[in-house]
């Protein structure tokens, strides 16, 4: 996920049940199901549905392999399974809700999605005869199993595309209309919700004939959330608390595993600084991009977050002032140091707009300011190593 944030590619993931609500609203066939937050509700749902699948509503991938999907034949069994699943943690994410769905008899599983092909600058349908599996891996090994159908963003979906898919998947003639409806609806969802992915994996072929979306995934372009106030509050719920805090202040922030805290302006420079830390033999604790033109106050908040971060041993600040003014940055650093009274070493490299003023402010407080990025990073790494050696924080 980090590269999304780092590359400014941000999006909102919807839960399966949210994606299916939308799919159903657009006429795409899905299994009957109920949302359950308690074992009682799960048992009730099972009473109505018969044999059921209990599906953990989490945003991380591969939940099936991780035990996030179970089955039950009786309400009692559903109760027990739900009890196990609810409040458990799967791949680091807590399960708060289950989607209880009727078990559907299926013959085949396909893969069908619509997404954005950035390099080609088109919208594209992706289709595979083999769904319900790790499609990414499958396609890497057998690219011939994937059909791509590009869509002109000004023209939109055209029904003939569904006939290509129907032939590719071997769908009988009497269901072509259904596939046309599904693909048309997927395109409408892409547009109406500013989605960058609508994925059914699997889109299944039922025992009695007919298509059904057994799983559904929709992600929404963050840049479009202003058009979709109903999603604004849901944005970034998959982030950690710290990531969310940083985001609320307006930074891009990602947790990493190392001990050198990093603050830069601009995603590219932040990544390059992380890489430089690694080059000189240590590991970055985080990615924090204060963006362009950050004020004194925002810099202060960024610095405080990292000074108070338990894993950070040394804070490395690398600013190339363009819109960002170095004096503002310097003032923010000083304020954060005063407010936290932190003794963590801070290594600073400042360059660009109002560099001299910034340098002066920092040096008056006894802080060294580097001019070259290499020098600053080497110093930070050296400090972190000595702290580790001496066991002092």
């Amino acid at each position, binding site marked *: 996920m980090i590269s999304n944030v780092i*590359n400014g590619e941000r999006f909102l993931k919807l839960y399966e049940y949210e994606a299916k609500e939308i799919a159903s609203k657009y006429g795409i066939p899905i299994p009957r199901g109920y949302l359950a937050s308690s074992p009682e509700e799960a048992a009730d749902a099972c009473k109505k549905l018969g044999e059921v699948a209990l599906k953990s509503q989490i945003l991380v991938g591969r939940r099936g392999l991780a035990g996030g999907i179970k089955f039950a034949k009786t309400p009692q069994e559903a109760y027990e399974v739900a009890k196990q699943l609810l409040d458990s943690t799967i791949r680091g994410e807590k399960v708060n809700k289950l989607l209880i769905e009727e078990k559907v008899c299926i013959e085949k599983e396909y893969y069908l999605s619509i*997404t954005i092909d950035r390099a080609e600058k088109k919208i594209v349908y992706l289709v595979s005869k083999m769904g319900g599996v790790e499609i990414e891996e499958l396609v890497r090994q057998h690219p011939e199993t994937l059909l791509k159908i590009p869509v002109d963003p*000004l023209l939109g979906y055209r029904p003939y595309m569904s006939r290509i898919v129907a032939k590719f998947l071997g769908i009988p003639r009497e269901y072509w209309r259904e596939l046309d409806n599904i693909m048309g609806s997927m395109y409408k969802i892409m547009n109406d919700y500013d989605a960058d992915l609508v994925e059914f994996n699997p889109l299944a072929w039922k025992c009695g004939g007919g298509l059904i979306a057994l799983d559904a995934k929709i992600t929404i*372009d963050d840049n479009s959330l202003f058009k979709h106030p109903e999603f604004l509050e849901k944005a970034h719920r998959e982030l950690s608390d710290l990531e969310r805090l940083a985001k609320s202040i307006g930074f891009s922030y990602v947790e990493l595993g190392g001990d050198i805290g990093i603050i830069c302006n601009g995603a*590219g420079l932040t990544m390059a600084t992380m890489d430089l830390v690694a080059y000189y033999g240590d*590991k970055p604790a985080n990615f924090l991009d204060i963006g362009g033109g950050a004020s004194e106050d925002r810099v202060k908040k960024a610095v405080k977050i990292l000074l108070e971060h338990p894993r950070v041993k040394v804070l490395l600040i690398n600013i*190339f002032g363009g819109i960002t003014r170095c004096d503002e940055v310097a003032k923010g650093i000083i304020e954060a140091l005063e407010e936290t009274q932190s003794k963590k070493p801070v290594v600073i490299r400042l360059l660009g707009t109002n560099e001299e003023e910034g340098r002066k402010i920092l040096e008056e407080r006894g802080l060294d300011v580097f001019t070259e990025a290499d020098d600053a990073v080497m110093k930070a790494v050296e400090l972190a190593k000595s702290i580790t050696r001496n066991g002092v924080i």
Partner: protein
Amino acid sequence: MGILVNKDTRVLVQGITGREGSFHTKLMLEYGTKIVAGVTPGKGGTNVHGVPVYDTVKEAVEESGGIDASIIFVPAKFAPDAVYEAIDNGIKLIVVITEGIPVHEELKFVRYAKEHNTIIIGPNTPGIMTIGETKIGIMPAHVFKKGKIGLVSRSGTLTYEIARELGKKDYGVSTVVGLGGDPVTGLNFIDVYNYFMNDPDTEAVVIIGEIGGDAEERFAKYYTLLRNKKPVVAYIAGKTAPPGKRMGHAGAIISMGMGDYASKRKALEEAGIPVADKPSEIPSLLDKAI
């Protein structure tokens, strides 16, 4: 010389009366950029740092005696309309500084621009600058020395950092082009390289990539097939960033496993393009490549 823009390029600023638009109009004018008009709907008849402001691009084009390029500082919500207005009024190069534009909007206007033979730089770009001639962007001008290196980048501040490293070793820049940080942009590395190829003032090209997407891999593949080529040196940011999972599976399916640091570095090196381990290493790679 340099590519795409020069001292004679007549520039329009869309969103000129806003905070950013006004501030950078001043800096661009100071650099020598020939800004002939500005547009902010409802502010027609005023002026910003001496530049006349119009309500519509139509008026700006008619009154100013011709416009070659536009730079857009309009907020994300209104930026697509500003782009269409520029395209429909015949402006052939549009620099979209704005960040936060919905990707579906970007897909549409980039597609529309291409059909109208209009070059889009960005969105979410620091802009374009032909050193010593014109700056149509927001980059700090002083770090770019004039010289023979073409610079093309997906990044902002990192580009300034690298321009400075070049300058320290007396490598100057002919033109610097920021492709833009958004997933869908008007130009890619191949496009810009081809412009540099035709520029007699550019001797070598530095490509500044980053993880995500497959623009670097595509360029490497393209470069391999060329018979005549100028030397290229690259830097890729994001070696230590953990692999992204953007867009669930589908994104990864499209790029077929491309997009991570190793894939990009491998592709570039196999194309004969040296990849620097850190920005300060780029000049020495250039020494060898030229």
